[in-house]
């Protein structure tokens, strides 16, 4: 920077190309971390499987700038407990501790296996830990399905308000339509819970308008 030049971009001396390139790369790192509200790049310890990533990227339509200033998140489930009964699974999602953002769209994607015995009801509820480590269960949604493959189940955003810890536990219980429970073999599984076809959450969040909280309190 020329001494005494009054503004940074006027007449700064031309840098040697390598110096300029190194400066630009450093600038790029700062600019990206700042734009993503990060202080340093994340260390990825468990990257999702490539096939699951490819599917997620397809959902997020990369490259299109969404009209709403905010973020879209795809969070893959880690299975907490697929208890003995074929019709009940607990999924855990690790979400980044929510900044001043508001969740306005949530869908749970499940992959149903071809062993589906006709129509099935799925009940989705959420387990959360309250004060003094009391655990409570909140009903979120019930969906009916009768075809194998991927299904996107809409969830109420209000029911997914982030836990401070950022850990979200959802339980999926299913029951066959009345009358055809005989079609259900014991230990038969209907829901894909591992590998590339594991369930994932699709969330859309937007930055809180400044002062929104105050308006609500009033």
């Amino acid at each position, binding site marked *: 920077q020329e001494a005494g030049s009054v*503004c940074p*971009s006027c007449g700064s001396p031309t840098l040697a190309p390598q110096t300029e390139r190194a400066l630009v790369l450093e600038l790029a790192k700062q600019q990206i971390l700042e734009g993503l509200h990060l202080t340093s790049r994340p260390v990825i310890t468990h990257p999702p499987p490539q096939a699951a990533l490819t599917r997620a990227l397809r959902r997020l339509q990369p490259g299109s700038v969404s009209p709403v200033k905010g973020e879209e998140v795809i969070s893959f489930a880690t299975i907490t407990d697929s208890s003995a009964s074929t019709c009940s699974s607990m999924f855990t999602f690790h979400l980044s501790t929510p900044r001043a953002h508001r969740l306005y769209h949530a869908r749970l994607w499940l992959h149903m296996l071809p062993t589906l015995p006709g129509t099935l009801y799925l009940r989705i509820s959420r387990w959360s830990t309250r004060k003094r480590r009391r655990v409570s269960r909140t009903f979120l949604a019930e969906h009916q399905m009768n075809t194998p493959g991927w299904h996107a189940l809409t969830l109420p955003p209000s029911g997914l308000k982030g836990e401070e810890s950022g850990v979200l536990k959802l339980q999926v219980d299913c029951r066959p339509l009345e009358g055809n429970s005989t079609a259900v073999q014991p230990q038969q599984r209907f829901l894909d819970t591992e590998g590339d076809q594991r369930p994932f959450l699709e969330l859309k969040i937007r930055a809180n308008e400044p002062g929104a909280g105050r308006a609500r309190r009033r």
Partner: protein
Amino acid sequence: TPTCEPETPLCCRRDHYVDFQELGWRDWILQPEGYQLNYCNGQCPPHLAGSPGIAASFHSAVFSLLKANNPWPLGISCCVPTAKRSLSLLHLDRNGNVVKTDVPDMVVEACGCS
């Protein structure tokens, strides 16, 4: 806005393409593969002050001539971005979630003299 050539002393836009591979960040930034990091650089003599770059209209050309004939420069003018656009980044967060973030004003598209 003219893109800076080595001999351009006047206000112009300096283009740099940054490949995330070069930053060693391709493992967590999934898309795009890189982006344009442009910045504004160069002199802003008084008669160019307030001109929006190459898109100057007839009015601002006349206005610049008037200023150029004014022996007392109105003040210091700087080469600054006059148009920017946002960039949509697909990246992994520390929990392995895929996050799509639209970062506003990320790419400088035009420069001009303040």
